């Protein structure tokens, strides 16, 4: 079986599993992302008595009791020289523990609204077979992350929040747009024409922060049935961080995998969707070692 062309990604999966199952995780993700916006809008849209969540992604209060604070913004505030108080710290700890369990970059694929924009750009790239553009290292984002913290120290203010497309988009949807649309348009065009997966996959320091946060997180995608892989390449084509797949999917001989252990896997589950052979499923990091041990045992047996 040879590799599928980009515009045909997922077609086999739809034939094999039906449309719903071939788009299950994508639909769940979009629902989750929209929910994160809608929860903040019940108050303004329905009236004073219908608040579910107040604030926005940087900090919020849900049902007047659950405080959540973005640990990255709080870290910038700390670097800018502001002392942290308990209210924000509690919120940040809850968020940190959550992403520590479900995977750091789950923020990117299940919560962040910019992900919808960049996924659309990537989808259009596949559909119209747009290739090329600027290429730079995926590690660039860690330098950007470091830079935002350094500027916070030097300027004594939360500098990145002045231009952060993630918070700009989420805040604008909830509190009003102004000219914010241009920032989002810029990210879209950047990803569509200038650099493939340029923003989320290479530059965004928010994603970089959450990848560090979830470096040893619990929930992971696993290529459990990797022996079924027919090299159609669909998963590589849809994956926003395609470098994470290979060690898990193709690592049988080297003794790596089958769990995707890379900190930049966003747990978006799109590889599960598009695989007609049901190679992938959600699992956890400890299943990696167990399978490794099992295969070692087999080798030892006569």
């Amino acid at each position, binding site marked *: 079986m040879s590799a599928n062309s980009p515009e045909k990604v997922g077609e086999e999966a739809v034939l094999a599993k039906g449309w719903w199952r071939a788009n299950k995780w994508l639909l769940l993700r979009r629902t989750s992302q929209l929910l994160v916006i809608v929860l903040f809008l019940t108050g303004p849209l329905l009236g004073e008595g219908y608040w579910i969540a107040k604030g926005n992604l940087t900090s919020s209060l849900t049902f007047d009791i659950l405080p959540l604070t973005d640990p990255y913004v709080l870290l910038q505030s700390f670097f800018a020289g502001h002392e942290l108080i308990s209210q924000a710290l509690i919120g940040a700890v809850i968020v940190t523990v959550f992403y520590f369990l479900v995977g750091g970059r789950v923020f990117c694929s299940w919560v962040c609204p910019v992900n919808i924009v960049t996924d659309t750009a990537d989808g259009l790239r596949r559909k119209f077979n747009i290739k090329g553009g600027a290429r730079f290292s995926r590690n660039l984002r860690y330098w950007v992350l470091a*830079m935002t913290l350094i500027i916070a120290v030097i300027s*004594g203010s939360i500098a990145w929040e002045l231009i952060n497309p993630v918070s700009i988009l989420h805040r604008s949807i909830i509190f009003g747009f102004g000219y914010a649309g241009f920032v989002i348009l810029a990210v879209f065009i950047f990803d569509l024409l200038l650099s493939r997966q340029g923003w989320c996959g290479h530059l965004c320091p928010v994603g970089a922060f959450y990848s560090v946060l979830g470096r040893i997180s619990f929930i992971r995608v696993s290529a459990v049935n990797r022996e079924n892989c027919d090299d159609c390449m669909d998963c590589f084509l849809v994956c926003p961080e395609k470098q994470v797949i290979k060690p898990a999917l193709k690592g049988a001989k080297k003794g790596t995998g089958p769990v995707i252990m890379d900190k930049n896997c966003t747990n978006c589950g799109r590889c599960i969707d598009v695989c007609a052979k049901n190679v992938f499923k959600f699992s956890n990091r400890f299943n990696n070692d167990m399978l490794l041990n099992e295969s070692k045992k087999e080798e030892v047996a006569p």
Partner: protein
Amino acid sequence: MFEHLLSRRRFIVETARMISGVALLGIGLGLYTKESKSLPAYALRPPGVKSEDDFLSACIRCGLCVRDCPYDILKLSKLAEPVALGTPYFEARKVPCEMCEDIPCVKACPTGALDKELTNIDDARMGLAVIVDQETCLNYQGLRCDVCHRVCPLLNEAITLEPRHNQRSGKHTLFIPVVHSDKCTGCGKCERACVLEAAAIKVLPLELAKGELGHHYRLGWEEKEKAGESLVTPDREHKYNLPEGLKYEHDGKGLLKDSR
């Protein structure tokens, strides 16, 4: 062997490229951040902000203060507005602060950007009201407008009306509104209420509005009160060379005609 050197060379160049690219972005961001600190004079911060510098290190732009403001006075700055993006402010001339006693905006703030130590709204210092135009202020013209004085939540404390002689008419009194910085919270009610087309009284940021006496300054009358006596040479009895039939009481009624 050369391959090894080449790959090291490539590694160094790649790294340098990455660092300098990010550094350029950083310089741009740094300069923009610096500029974003210049809050325009009409934009007032919610109560509990110590200084703009301090505020921009602490405010994470979540908008919880905006949500809990019962009068919808606060708003978050949008892109291309001259206030640091996403931070809360209000404009006194549009909608002034209602000075809620329980200060819900401060309570809502998760980071302490709005200082939790502010528990009495009368201690808030969002700015300072200033009569910026004496040429148009009606009270300065001798009329009894008094509106800024009347609407002040700290009536007769933050703004008092001081009688002055009306030199134009020669026989009337001007009631000059005088703002007292030890009381004015900068809520902006006076600016909102000013009846002119453009307000003659405006709330300005404290650092713009407030003068500061040189620290070496000593005001004689205050020092005298503190010490309980004059600190310069005591007043001596003075000999006056007055015409016959007149005398002068220094600490009394002044010039006296001898009633003999």
